[in-house]
């Protein structure tokens, strides 16, 4: 029984890590730039396809393809930000939502046209397959890898935003665009880079089993994480993703009859308790 509990916790944390990777980029764009980008999943999908194509057609190793996926999504982020998103920074949230959901449908149609509707499986390298046995528990190697990636991302992002000059520029630009610009910060460049960062992080999350419906399939999950966690921080979505992941897995394991609803119940309870998200960003 106790063994089960530890196993469930482990799977939950791993699942939460996956949720965190696909959501953190949204927290960056939504919280720091105040842009509701529903097309976040489309960037994740782009990264995913980049991964799959590099591995299956060009023979690039998995670990190398992940950073490239990040760069491909980030590059697409810069281009689209310059061409389209920039025009909507001052628009209402409804306009932003309509615009970005339109992008989602275009991305779905485009990928279906080029790659077909079937799932593109990601062939994991040998050392990430199977399980390792630690203290009588069977732990999936790939899940351990996911958790490690999340640790690395969290540390890197926290450092970037809290400790570097670029991080300070982001925070300044968000808090007061005019004052930041007056101090000589190139606000547009900062936003472009922030947007690219958010898109790139989405790309990392996409390299994990991908088909053209990905942006819609996961939309609920990443909105959930950002809503519960609070946009604009890193700790908030991390905490939210882990809590949601653990409760989702535990629910499905212990009470499979209602398992798929548990995650939504948790969301409702958390939103009642913390209407501004677990970790609110100071205004």
């Amino acid at each position, binding site marked *: 029984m106790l063994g089960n509990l530890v196993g469930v916790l482990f799977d939950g944390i791993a699942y939460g890590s996956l949720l965190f990777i696909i959501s953190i980029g949204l927290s960056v764009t939504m919280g720091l730039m105040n842009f509701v980008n529903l097309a976040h999943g489309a960037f994740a999908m782009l990264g995913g396809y980049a991964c799959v194509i590099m591995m299956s057609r060009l023979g690039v190793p998995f670990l190398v393809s992940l950073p490239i996926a990040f760069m491909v999504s980030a590059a697409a982020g810069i281009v689209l930000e310059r061409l389209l998103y920039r025009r909507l920074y001052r628009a209402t949230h409804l306009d932003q939502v309509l615009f970005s959901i339109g992008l989602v449908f275009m991305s779905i*149609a485009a990928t279906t046209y080029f790659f*077909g509707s*079937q799932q593109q*499986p990601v*062939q994991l390298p040998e050392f990430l397959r199977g399980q390792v046995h630690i203290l009588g528990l*069977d732990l999936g190697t790939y899940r351990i890898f996911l958790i490690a990636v999340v640790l690395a991302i969290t540390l890197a992002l926290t450092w970037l935003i809290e400790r570097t000059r670029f991080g300070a520029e982001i925070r300044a630009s968000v808090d007061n665009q005019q004052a930041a610009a007056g101090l000589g910060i190139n606000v547009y460049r900062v936003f472009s880079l922030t947007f690219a960062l958010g898109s790139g992080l989405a790309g990392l999350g996409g390299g994990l089993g991908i088909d053209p419906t990905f942006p819609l399939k996961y939309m609920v999950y990443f909105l959930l994480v950002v809503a519960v966690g609070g946009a604009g921080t890193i700790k908030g979505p991390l905490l939210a993703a882990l809590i949601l992941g653990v409760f989702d897995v535990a629910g499905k394991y212990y009470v*499979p*009859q209602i398992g798929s609803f548990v995650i939504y119940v948790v969301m409702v309870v958390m939103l009642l308790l913390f209407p501004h998200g677990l970790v609110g960003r100071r205004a």
Partner: protein
Amino acid sequence: MKRRNSSARRRFITSLAATAAAAAWSPRSAFAADPLRIGLILPLTGPFASTGRQIEAACRLYIARNGDTVAGRKVDLMVKDDTGLAPETTKRIAQEMVVQEHVAILAGFGLTPLAFATAPVATEAKVPMIVMAAATSVIPQRSPFIVRSGFTLPQVTAPMAEWAAKNKIKKVVTLVTDYGPGLDAEKTFVKRFAEGGGSVSDSLRTPLRSPDYAPFLQRVKDAKPDALFVFVPSGEGTAVLKQFAERGLRESGINLICTGDVLDDDLLDTIGQPALGIVSSHHYSAAHPSPENKAYVDGFMKANGGMRPNFHSVGGYDGMHLIYEAVKKTGGAADGEKIVAAMKGMAWTSPRGPMSIDPATRDVIQNVYIRKVESRDGHYWNVEFDKIDNVKDPGA
């Protein structure tokens, strides 16, 4: 001169009016020389696009191999995309095809709700409706004009349960997707397996959009059954089989058994290694050893850039066969009641093996095969090793 001219004109106008009146009275009593219009409604975009692509390719292959005229009438295949998601769209397309395009026969139908929505149109217009893919038992009862050329889920599930019970599998956990067909599969499996003397210790249902099967599979692993029975929509099979292998369920002595939907021929190569050795039951495998099937698979792959035909494709191919043979029997007349009557009891050898249409239920009767995934020249195939002859739909 003038008078003759005017009388000729009058005659012409009268005959025009007569034609128009005749057309108005019975829009489908077309002349034998008119084209035979078949309205094929399929999901060609959206999540079920693979089903539509397979069926369309198979129908076109049938026409290419059997000529585009039947009983003196040219076959005009009208293909429309219903995206597979909205029953009212499918119904509207069917109505337009019947009223404006005067199609003689409706065909296709990727999913059960789409077939349900269209059934009243077929009944009202007295147009035969060939259900090529949707697989719920009750579909043919919704209209006397429905004939099924695909399969039913209980029909292919029951043999799996019986085979498992006979092959030293005593305790099973079932894992199905929580939607109509999944519940049908679960119900049929549990009932038939119990009748065969086995016991189902747990029945798990996963949500339709489940990115992670880990908790369910962990539960299965801890329950230690002899086998896990799985039914999920074909695209989801990849994820389940991968996680089944990754979690080491096979090493802990649990066999995976499933219906052939999970091991869809179209996807089997992309599932790859984790599928190896898995036993399933289905009515069609691209590896079915017969000259008819060899010619079919070769022709299909050649015409479609190497795409392998799957179980939905034969629903389309045999549906076209039904239409051709029935129209031959009626001598080219496209009267709905006569066509359906001609289809009842029809029997032939399909690429999938021998099959027939039950005259009482208008549903398909066919062999169901037990297969095992093997690897041959770098590709994965469902190789048949046992069969149950002439399986009727057992009902849900």
